[in-house]
């Protein structure tokens, strides 16, 4: 069992997330984190998953996912030399007296204070999961009101782009000639 970081380039259509989640669920995986957002190519989104599993099991689901028509590229980056980050927002209880101590922690971790209220502050932290865990532990004694984490986003180091496509080719494969029809096709999420 090890942690796998899987990156997929998918067509941005309704139902895609459902299809992908369904493949993991069917095979008994629990997705630890999942992030989705636009990619460098219009109409395509890039997803990053992290899951725990044996390489054989994860490999099998990855292959199954590649069979989803809307999945354009998919790669398990675990073995690659990757950079990865996660972003977290933490709302920490803080009286006026406690603020300076909190600011000190924020500076050490190169975090940012986004909002200050009479009895709390909102802090943004970016980094590896370990770093976020660490800062979370330091804030805990003050009282954490809320924590939200984006989950991991990852990219292969160097020039390699295991989940990129030639954007001009995507244009040729557009679902239908531009201007025809307005609504989306696919299953509703």
């Amino acid at each position: 069992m090890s942690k796998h970081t899987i990156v997929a380039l998918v067509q941005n259509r309704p139902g895609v997330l459902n299809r992908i989640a369904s493949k993991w669920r069917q095979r008994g995986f629990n997705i630890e984190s999942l992030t989705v957002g636009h990619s460098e190519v219009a109409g395509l989104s890039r997803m990053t998953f992290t899951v725990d599993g044996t390489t054989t099991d994860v490999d099998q689901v990855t292959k199954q996912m590649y069979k989803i028509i809307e999945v354009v590229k998919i790669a398990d980056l675990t073995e690659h030399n990757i950079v990865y980050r996660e972003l977290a927002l933490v709302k920490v209880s803080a009286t006026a007296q406690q603020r300076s101590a909190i600011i000190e922690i924020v500076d050490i971790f190169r975090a940012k204070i986004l909002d200050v209220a009479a009895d709390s502050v909102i802090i943004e932290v970016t980094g590896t999961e370990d770093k976020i865990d660490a800062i979370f532990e330091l804030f805990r004694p003050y009282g954490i009101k809320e924590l939200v984490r984006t989950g991991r986003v990852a990219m292969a180091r160097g020039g390699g782009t295991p989940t990129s496509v030639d954007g001009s080719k995507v244009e040729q494969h557009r679902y239908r000639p531009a201007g025809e029809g307005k609504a989306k096709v696919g299953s509703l999420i």
Partner: protein
Amino acid sequence: MKMTGAQIVMECLAREGVEHIFGYPGGANLPLYDTLPQYPQVRHILVRHEQAAAHAADAYARVTGKAGVCFATSGPGATNLVTGIANAWMDSVPLVCITGAVATWLIGRDGFQEADITGITVPITKQNYLVLDVNDIAYTMREAFHIATTGRPGPVLVDIPRDIQQESAEFHWPEKIELLNYRPVTKGHPSQIKKAAQLIDEAERPLILAGHGVVISHAYDELRELAERAHIPVICTLLGLGGFPGSHELFMGMPGMHGMYWNNIAIGEADLIMGIGMRFDDRVTGRLKDFAPHAKIIHIDVDPAEIGKNVKTAVPIVGDVKHVLQAMNPLVQPARHDAWYQRIMQLRQEHPSITIPKVDKVLPQYVIKKVYEMSPPDTYYVTGVGQHQMWAAQFYWGDNPAGFVTSGGLGTMGFEVPAAMGVQFAKPKHTVWSFCGDGGFQMNVQELATIVEHELPIKFAIINNGHLGMVRQWQHLYYADNLQSVRLFQPDYVKLAEAYGMAGMRVTDKLEVESAIEKALRHPGPVLIDFEVEQHEDTFPAMPPGAALSETVDLPRFDAEPEFEHEKVRSR
């Protein structure tokens, strides 16, 4: 040209060459039905239950190689298709299901007869669509057929709201479909093919396990050429039956849970296994860690996700079986494996597995064997699921490719009646036998009405043992004979047949078996024979659940004379 959404659907079906649709109308697909008279070349068959529409289209696709098409309305109509779609999914059958959906403004509001059928069928379709714009219909239909029939075939569902069927749009027929990701590999990788050919040359005890992929890609000649060239015995999986001629001396029958004992032992002794268009299902492999311990495995499959899913492969080849074998055969050195062949023949002598004892009782396997003996060689056989299915498979040593139609992966009881209907529509001039369990028959018995209405001359053989036979066998063997909920109350099947307007016969005596089959074969219309067979006959060989192939229990020895002096059914 401007057309309504419903017309576009029908125009697409006509252009795809669809001749039969199996379907059932309802509120949400009425515009489609309204358009039917404009397309007389596309014949709609009204079934009596949507599940039957899916199974009929499924079986139709299996014997024609074309996509089967079915219609259903929204809500319950669509959900009734689900078992049939799952069946086609598990057995890689091309199916295009067109369902009506509630009007767009009602979607997501729990309106009358609304079901999220695209959501429901995500795990059991290759792709599905909810079409929300009339301009998308033509492209979607084209894409649906393309995806259903290429690569590893499978079901595709197109859900079209009622108002979209009624709206109008300019009709554009896309000549070519190109999808960004979906481009199934057909040709295998040359270096992999070379490696495989080398392994075959080095092998001393090779075996071919041929599956449904051989039938789907029509690789009959190529498989035969390979087997003959390198002198390799061929074992066909349940769905692979018919992929290799049953009369061929290299044909060894079926492997696995109820397969030939000799095959299960031979797999354990082989030093090379070629899985061709099959997926190493648990019913074939038994306990995985003990599967083929001495063999290197070559796996040819069109679906890359099948490679390494269940067994570790020495040489994987992703590609269409026909293309791969065409490229591989010339690279394989002609060889003889006489010692190995003799070894398997010796196992066959010692463990006849499918011998039938000569007794006075009506044994189910005797009935099935007699049907095979007496029917023309180009007959199509359809089965349900359970004991009779396994006997039908064990004794199927026919040469008709795709002549054996059965629900393998999903194991759907009730498949036998509608599937026979689909086969007979596809093959109107051929004899079609449907081997039915008395359990499964009652699951889709309503289709007798459709069959009589269309005068389909299907021969139904109910292998009536008064029980859910396979469940009874498992309770008997593995649950200390604690028989629970397996005894079936039986209607009078002869009267039932007559009530539907077809001929019915009952056979309770062994001496009547032949004459009943003969009468059925001569009868020009549909006919049902209720064979009241021995109730406590078990299907052997049998591999206990969770056991290894080597732990298969062979047919227990019996004192009686064997019934048949058949080359495949040897006396001991």
